[in-house]
């Protein structure tokens, strides 16, 4: 009898210890043998990244690895931080021409109250496609009108919106008029005069300040009237208080200057988006200390006189002037192409290293999450991409994508359809 009890308790202990021990052992993972490009700090030609849970515990050439660490052999591969898209519609659009599938453009001109993350569709077929090209986080933002709404930051994995959202409100989107395209694009007059818009915005922000002040005062003094709820001004309070930066979409040279002045006078934290004539006023943008997120580089120059390569060389000019830059896909369907916008800018003068920063650490800085992502550094989240070549190159294949230490599924709509129809060809052979 005692023998039996001893035997069973031994088995029990073993199982329990294996069970619990396995947990402890699986908490560590090490990626070994890769050429590590941390983006911040020197490259490590043949290194190891040690991951504990969701964070990078250590990285270097020879680092001690705790026993029981899960080893991932990455020899011959490159390890990069996961890329961050500076503006996209992932999760907000499935089929561009079908309105029922699009949720990034609310009706009306003034919509500070809407939040992109509240329309997020985690099952979007475009998310796994982007993720499998090395993009691990993205700014999802609404567009349209004058004030389009609030952008949010998401991780490109998760079963529910809550699991995806990193930051539910990152910037307030403001849009200045665009420019008619150059050359063979149909000429269209800009929608509205930018100077009128600035006046309108100034009025609104002043009203919001007043709204906040009155409310604060009324809270303290019961005798003072408490203002009626205003569904627009309410959501502008974080902007005027400096908590919520504005992202201003602006293209033309004179509009950029007007926007800089606006931002200065209103004492707002600002990011500029698009900025296709930014190269003309690079020093002014630098002086104002405003970072820039570029739109898609797959575009004609805003004016034929700017030159056929204006959009392509714009990032290099701004970066060399000292402006902090980031790239975006401005798309859901083409979100996977984020790295190639950066590469196109390199073809027209941008330094390769700066290009890589502009899709990793710089957007992290700009969106206030550089303490947790954007580079491979101790303490940051383990958002790691293992690639068989240069991350920005067209021919590079992504082998693994880790988000917060967990390996993600790289299968997607493309691979599923291909597998299905491969079987048709193979059957007939």
């Amino acid at each position, binding site marked *: 009898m005692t023998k039996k009890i001893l035997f069973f308790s031994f088995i029990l202990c073993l199982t329990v210890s294996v069970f619990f021990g396995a947990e402890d052992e699986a908490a560590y993972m090490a990626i070994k043998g890769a050429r590590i490009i941390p983006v911040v700090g020197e490259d490590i030609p043949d290194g190891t990244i040690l991951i504990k849970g969701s964070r990078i515990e250590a990285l270097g050439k020879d680092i001690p690895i705790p026993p029981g660490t899960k080893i991932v052999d990455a020899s011959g591969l490159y390890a990069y931080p996961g890329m961050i898209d500076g503006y996209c519609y992932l999760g907000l659009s499935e089929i561009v*021409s079908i309105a029922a599938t699009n949720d990034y453009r609310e009706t009306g001109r003034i919509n500070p109250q809407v939040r992109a993350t509240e329309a997020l569709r985690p099952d979007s*077929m475009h998310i796994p496609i982007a993720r499998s090209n090395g993009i691990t986080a993205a700014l999802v933002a609404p567009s349209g009108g004058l004030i389009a709404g609030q952008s949010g930051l998401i991780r490109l994995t998760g079963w529910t919106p809550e699991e995806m959202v990193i930051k539910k409100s990152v910037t307030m989107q403001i849009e200045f008029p665009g420019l008619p395209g150059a050359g*063979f694009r149909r000429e269209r007059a800009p929608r509205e005069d930018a100077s009128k818009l600035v006046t309108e915005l100034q009025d609104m922000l002043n009203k919001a300040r007043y709204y906040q002040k009155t409310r604060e005062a009324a809270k303290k003094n019961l005798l003072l009237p408490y203002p009626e709820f205003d569904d627009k001004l309410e959501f502008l309070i974080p902007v005027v208080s400096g908590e919520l930066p504005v992202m201003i979409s602006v293209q033309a040279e004179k509009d950029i200057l007007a926007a800089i002045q606006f931002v200065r006078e209103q004492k707002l934290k600002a990011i500029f988006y698009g900025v296709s004539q930014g190269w003309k006023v690079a020093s002014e943008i630098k002086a104002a200390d405003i970072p820039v997120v570029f739109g898609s580089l797959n575009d004609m120059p805003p004016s034929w*006189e700017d030159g056929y390569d204006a959009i392509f060389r714009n990032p290099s000019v701004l970066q060399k002037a000292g402006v902090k830059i980031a790239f975006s896909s401005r798309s859901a369907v083409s979100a996977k192409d984020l790295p*190639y916008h950066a590469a196109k800018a390199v073809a027209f003068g941008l330094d390769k290293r700066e290009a890589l920063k502009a899709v990793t650490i710089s957007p992290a800085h700009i969106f206030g999450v550089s303490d947790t992502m954007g580079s491979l550094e101790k303490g940051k989240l383990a958002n790691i991409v293992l690639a068989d070549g240069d991350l920005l190159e067209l*021919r590079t294949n992504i082998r693994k994508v880790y988000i917060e230490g967990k390996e993600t599924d790289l299968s997607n709509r*493309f691979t599923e359809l291909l597998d299905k*129809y491969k079987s048709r060809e193979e059957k007939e052979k």
Partner: protein
Amino acid sequence: MNKTLAAFILGIIVTALPCFSDGGNLLVKNGTILTVTKGSLPKGDLLIIGGVIKDIGENLKAPEGVRVIDASGKFVIPGIIDAHTHIALSGTNETGDVITAEVNMRDVIQAEDLAIFTALTGGVTMAHTMHGSANPIGGRDITLKMKWGRPAEELIVPQAYQTLKFALGENPKQASRQVFGGAPQRYPATRMGVNAIIRAEMLAAKNYMLQWERYLKDTKGKNPPKTLAPPRRDLRLEALAELLRGNLVARVHSYRADESLKFIDLSKEFGFKIVCFEHIPEAFKITRELRTEGIGTSVFVDSWAYKVEAAEGIASSAAYCTKNGVLVSINSDGGERMRRLFNDAGKTLKYGGLTEDEALKLISINPAIQLGVAKTAGSLEVGKDGDVAIFNEHPLSAYARCEMTIIEGDVYFDRAQYLKEREEAAKQAEEAKKPGGGQ
């Protein structure tokens, strides 16, 4: 922007034109020559005389008076060919009727379209520019060389196939009208209607051909009756008759696999040739049929999900079809993308694992075959036209940039020259701004 600067930009575009003869003479020296069909030379020369490639090899000597272009460190490829676009035309669709086979893009060539210059900045030397997809049967298309600054007639490539545009699916059935309303819905409004109207027109064309056959026979007879009058000449039916006779070939805009298969049946029913399906994101589903029928595809590399019928496109379709014996070309369908076709080709290395040569073929010899110009274009071979693009990096690299574009031995785009002139103009503009300076 200053007037002078603007004038100089214009000047660059208009006046930086080669001295024309019947084709130019050039020696491209010391570049990495990617012939696409006959291997590569890591450090080679390419000689063009009278607009035709005379020699490819190492240490070639330039005959007297021939301009030498230093291509050291650069990559030399055949001029890129876009098999499907709509540039350089005054108008895209004749929307006033449903079947408009009588219209001809040759009548509306717009040789001053800035899109031609834009194409040159991306290494493109030839484009097949087409009627749009508004109608089940559109019109005749035309193949042009991007000879910026030359009159329209000189752009035409006479030996290219004469093509007739067909369209299937959402565009010709005006699917958006069903959703958004507007003008009254025209017939056909379904895919079955699209097929039915094409069949009806083919039958009408056959009828027309028969009437003319009978008339011609009757007039040759012993005593043609006084009452014998010829049938009325109908330009629309004549175009279709040309298709049925094999003098025109069909280029068919389609998206779904099923509508493409049905159209293959239609082509067999009437005995006309389909050269390519255009766009056809679902091509990967029917590689077997495409291969068996010898029908090619001309596609975007990875545009999809912009319409319902494009919802099952995959980025590896071009590569997959190529590996399964289908002749594939990558196109732009427009002016902006045309200058990035080399980037699009690069994507097939990743999405589908093509080799470098296979990828380059998608934008050179494959479209040349589809356009019927493979004898004179599409690769760097002795005897072919001197259509060449020179890049600073391997063209399939994301970091590549087109430096020079040459058509039949004449330089039509030279980035170094362009930059120099831009700098000059900027200097002049600065001078003009100074008090009492410049003009």
